[in-house]
């Protein structure tokens, strides 16, 4: 059984796209924080992607992905009505959501979409959700409308100041933490340097900080340990122990190193793909 793409939207042309996939058995079970592993075709690799949203009644899940390598480029070449061979999930531990006064959800780049599902979970639990989102410039911001739909506050930062605060999400976060003592938790999803910076900002405030790690994975069900990371001095598997961990405990520099381990093969794969594309094989 293949999984049909019911909707495809290029959020940032050539860079970031959204697909709505028909996967009722996953939609029924998906919770904030969960991810799926998908494989495009018989020759494909298993790719972990966070679930950005779900609709259990329609039987669909929404995935937002950044085009970085061969698999994501190939996924981006698919259109509405096309099929993905394998979609497996929901995987990973769901976000631990408890009643808080205020929860700040920080998202950067594609991570905003993943953060959106977590923010929604906190909102549905009755928490006051402040979303802080950032990008280089205005037209690279994702999911602002969706977040506006349920978050009482959405704060925006852009590097160039084209909209919102000129600077980083961490500037807005720091200011908010200084002014607002009701914040019970900060959640951050985005590029590793951003999550690392968020943890650094929250540390002096002693506020619980949750980050969602995007380690390299193979099976996504605990079998291989490719996604292992050091948290609080112990080795953890992002796929079954996470993907969310205490930001103060994560060894971010190890994570960054491990994310690069297949860099050469990733380039080779991309070149191979481009060559095949030119020959009209895909």
């Amino acid at each position: 059984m293949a999984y049909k793409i019911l909707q495809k939207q290029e959020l940032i042309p050539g860079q970031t796209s959204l697909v709505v996939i028909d996967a009722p058995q996953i939609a029924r079970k998906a919770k904030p924080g969960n991810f799926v592993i998908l494989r495009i075709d018989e020759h494909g690799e298993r790719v972990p992607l966070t679930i950005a949203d779900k609709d259990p009644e329609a039987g669909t899940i929404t995935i937002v992905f950044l085009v970085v390598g061969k698999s994501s480029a190939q996924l981006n070449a698919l259109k509405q009505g096309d099929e993905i061979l394998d979609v497996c999930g929901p995987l990973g531990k769901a976000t631990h959501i408890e009643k808080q006064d205020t929860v700040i959800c920080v998202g950067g780049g594609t991570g905003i979409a993943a953060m959106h599902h977590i923010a929604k979970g906190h909102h549905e639990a009755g928490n006051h959700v402040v979303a802080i989102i950032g990008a280089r410039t205005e037209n690279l911001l994702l999911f602002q409308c969706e977040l506006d739909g349920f978050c009482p506050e959405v704060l925006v930062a852009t590097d160039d100041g084209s909209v919102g605060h000129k600077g980083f999400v961490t500037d807005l976060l720091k200011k908010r933490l200084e002014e607002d003592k009701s914040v019970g938790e900060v959640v951050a999803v985005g590029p590793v340097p951003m999550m690392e910076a968020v943890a650094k900002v929250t540390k002096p405030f002693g506020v619980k900080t949750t980050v969602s790690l995007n380690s390299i994975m193979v099976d996504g069900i605990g079998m291989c340990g490719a996604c292992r990371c050091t948290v609080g001095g112990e080795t953890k598997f992002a796929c079954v122990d996470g993907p969310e961990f205490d930001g103060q405990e994560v060894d971010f520099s190890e994570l960054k190193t491990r994310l690069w381990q297949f860099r050469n093969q990733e380039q080779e794969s991309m070149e191979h793909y481009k060559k095949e594309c030119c020959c009209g094989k895909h």
Partner: protein
Amino acid sequence: MGNTKPRSPKDAGPRTPMPEQPADVRAGNFKEVALGYSVEQALIEAERCLQCKKPLCQKGCPVGIDIKGFISKICEKDMDGAYAVIRESNSLPAVCGRVCPQETQCEGNCILGKKYEPVAIGRLERFVADTFMAKNACESITGTQECSMTQEGRKVACIGAGPSSLTVAGYLASKGIPVTVFEALHEPGGVLIYGIPEFRLPKSIVANEVAAMKELGVEIKVNWVGGKTVTIQDLQDQGYDAIFIGVGAGLPRFLNIPGENLVGVFSANEYLTRVNLGRAYDFPDYDTPTYMGKNVVVLGGGNVAMDAARTAKRMGADSVSIVYRRTQDAMPARLEELHHAIAEGIEIKALCGPLAFNGDDKGNLVSMKVQKMCLGEPDESGRRSPVCIEGETETVPCDMAVIAVGTRPNPILLEATPDMELNKWGYIKADPETGETSIPNVFAGGDIVTGAATVISAMGAGRKAAMEIAKRLL
């Protein structure tokens, strides 16, 4: 009948050798090492069987195959008949003929082996299964069995599509009970697909066995994770009469030594899954990459360590060594695998215990430090355990290390089923006779009950559970 003549062990003659790819050729390819008997070789080997009145070989088989029965059919040149005899007790004969540790099971019990060489039962089993599969398995199976689902009102679910679950599914389907198998990965077969390499067990063999099972009416759903996509409770709610859990051992163990998360250090599960399930040996034609170590160290002494070492050799490593803290004779790997590995140029560094992995400033593995060991005084059991030789360490240069020191229970299904009782090691507690867990009509078998063991012992557990399920449902 070729088997009525009286025989004596001394007339049996030597064991028929297995044709193999030469070591220097096979170390450069992923094709199967053992090539299989020809009809002539199989007949000669089958004639060696003494057809004992009280066959001990059958007692040594975890699924209790009527071994002398199928060998007798080979002597009669009735290969379909031989296959039917094996299939009465074994759902995956082509797999078992290849990967079972026969030397400690059937062949280990063979009377001939007391003084001479045992009958090559595994090779004969493989010959029968391959001969049968070659002539369109599905048609033959459905021709000899009533393939219509006669027990329409019943249904059984299996979680995991490895050896134990497939055994349950094959057995129950042959009894007319509809079975649905839920597999987490994208391909059924479990360890037969992600773990055991192509050169030991070709994927096509597993695919044939699975196809034969589908032909019997077994439904296999891939990408369904037990405990995530579907829970035990869901299956009970959906009216499954019995549920069998065969999800395998799970999480790889690491060594807890410094440098374990350096780039270049892998679990055997990751390395083998990339190469086997992901077909990384065909990268970039297949998308899954793997690390191409030039100097590879493998830690461990079991079959998985042998598989990882031999895979690394085939992936183009200049040197591969297996580091093991005990002596070579104490390695739990099958002798055949160890011999194959050595013949392919893999170095065995016995009596070396891992101390640390060393990296460069970019976080890449460059060497590992090992502790030299020697055998100490015999302990209470009379075994001499390895002890450290104080101050004697060695630095082994390596750009890739593969850790093959076993597994621990996978938490996914267990966490989603908090009512199910576990044993003190965290595996599922199951009745040794029936396989039933603490939840009525929920059964378990294979590595998730015993911890990492063999394909055939998982199949034995599957068979016990399947027989119990059939007894209750029919």
